[in-house]
């Protein structure tokens, strides 16, 4: 079914009985050209792009749980293109452009809201760094405005500008940045892929990867063996376990990232505001909840829930920046399993095994990457060659030391990002 104003009106008047499921629930076929392991944002977007752009719909997405149950439905939904390094910058710029046309392409409302992001800075040195980043963004063709303190105050007057710890000097304003409805992105790509013939198979865990003479031949699953010419591993926080089925070790350590949401409030925060010095960022969801988060829990974990010390740290920072949030009741907190790489940048590459490909290492920032990662991974799977904007996301960059993508300039080491 195509969504339209007419459909909404018609179904509204007829008791909403005309809506149909967004995708089928097929039994797996014996064989596919391409199997995607993992039905998160990246896996679904890959399948959609394979079918819609690269002309191959003989594809299955195998998801061990349900669509939207992984990080794609747990993140704080910030979408932006404010990366600095050559290699990252082009990729995220491409991704934001795809975001801007996604809803039209998919005929699905992902509630993409370009409400603007303000990255605060708190010293002269940070102002220089923000100006430099802003210039890089502009030279990439994206947008950036350097705001002084009064410029920030005009937009978000309720911050504590004179706080003693990190007084606010200004902010880098990225107007095209914003948020989106995370589940809707997963659903939209799932629906778009399904409509073009892709089989989305939920409750189907991959338990083994079949390899003969150095080439992949298919996978073992809880719904039986399935053959495939090519297999793409897109399992985010679980990438390590999936790769282990192919006898591989990845440059990835899984860590927990927490997020928090308050009760629904009247609209009070128009932008996304990030407070890097305090490890805190915040936006308001369309439902009204203040959605906020901070840094990782910083140790290897698969627990999908975090530690109190990090929660305390995040909330302290929030109170320092925006004292008014102290009046709101916190409803929930949760955690997601993050696939952390040593340099904080992702991997989209082939492996040493013929026909086996990997898309992982999205760290805490892979939601904004969902459209471009799907496009680039589909390009690689379909043509065997990396997409122009994803050439630097190589699996062997750590071994060789060439083109490490350390966006934050912290060093290329597991516990630094």
């Amino acid at each position, binding site marked *: 079914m195509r969504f339209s104003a007419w459909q909404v009106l018609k179904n509204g008047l007829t008791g909403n009985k005309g809506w149909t499921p967004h995708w089928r629930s097929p039994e797996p076929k014996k064989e596919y050209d391409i199997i995607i392991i993992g039905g998160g944002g990246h896996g679904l977007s890959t399948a959609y792009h394979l079918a819609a752009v690269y002309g191959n719909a003989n594809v299955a997405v195998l998801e061990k749980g349900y669509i939207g149950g992984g990080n794609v439905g747990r993140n704080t939904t910030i979408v932006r293109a404010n990366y600095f390094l050559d290699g990252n910058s082009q990729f995220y710029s491409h991704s934001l452009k795809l975001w801007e046309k996604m809803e039209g392409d998919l005929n699905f409302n992902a509630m993409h809201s370009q409400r603007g992001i303000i990255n605060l800075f708190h010293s002269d040195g940070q102002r220089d760094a923000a100006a430099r980043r802003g210039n890089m963004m502009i030279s990439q063709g994206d947008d950036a405005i350097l705001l002084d303190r009064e410029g920030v105050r005009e937009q978000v007057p309720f911050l504590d500008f004179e706080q003693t710890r990190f007084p606010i000097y200004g902010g880098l304003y990225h107007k095209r940045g914003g948020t989106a409805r995370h589940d809707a992105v997963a659903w939209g790509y799932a629906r778009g892929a399904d409509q073009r013939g892709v089989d989305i198979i939920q409750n189907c865990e991959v338990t083994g990867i079949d390899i003969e003479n150095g080439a992949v031949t298919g996978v073992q699953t809880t719904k039986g063996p399935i053959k495939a010419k090519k297999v793409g591993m897109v399992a985010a926080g679980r990438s*390590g376990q999936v790769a282990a089925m192919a006898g591989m*070790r990845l440059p990835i350590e899984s860590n927990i990232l927490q997020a928090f949401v308050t009760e629904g409030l009247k609209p009070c925060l128009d932008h996304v505001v990030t407070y890097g010095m305090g490890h805190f960022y915040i936006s308001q969801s369309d439902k009204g909840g203040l959605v906020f988060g901070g840094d990782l829990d910083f140790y290897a974990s698969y627990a999908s829930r975090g530690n109190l010390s990090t929660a305390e740290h995040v909330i302290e920072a929030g109170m320092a920046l925006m004292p008014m949030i102290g009046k709101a009741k916190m409803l929930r907190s949760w955690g997601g399993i993050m696939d952390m790489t040593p340099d904080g940048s992702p991997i989209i590459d082939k492996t040493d095994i013929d026909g086996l490909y990997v898309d992982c290492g999205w760290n805490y920032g892979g939601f904004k990457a969902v459209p471009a990662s799907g496009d680039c991974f589909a390009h690689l799977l379909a043509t065997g060659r990396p997409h122009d904007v994803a050439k630097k996301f190589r699996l062997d960059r*750590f071994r060789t030391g060439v083109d490490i993508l350390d966006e934050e300039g912290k060093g290329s080491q597991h516990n630094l990002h």
Partner: protein
Amino acid sequence: MRLTCPLCGERDRREFYYKGDAIALNRPAPDAGTDAWDDYLYLRDNPAGVTKDLWQHELGCSAWIVVERNTVTHEVLSTALASDVKKATK
């Protein structure tokens, strides 16, 4: 989470710095080759289950500690001084 420092006893997680997988105790020889260094610095088993990692009691006695824990349940199974673990593996 609380970790037991072999010297100071059970302490809050906030007192500890996390280094990463206890592979850090097995530094290869400088000329061991790229693959050995890749294994040591970057590639990880990253298990969902029991793992051994290296922590420092930074806000306490500064000792380096090997912690055996479960990454799924956050249960801490044992802790030992890194220097003792290193001696025992020699």
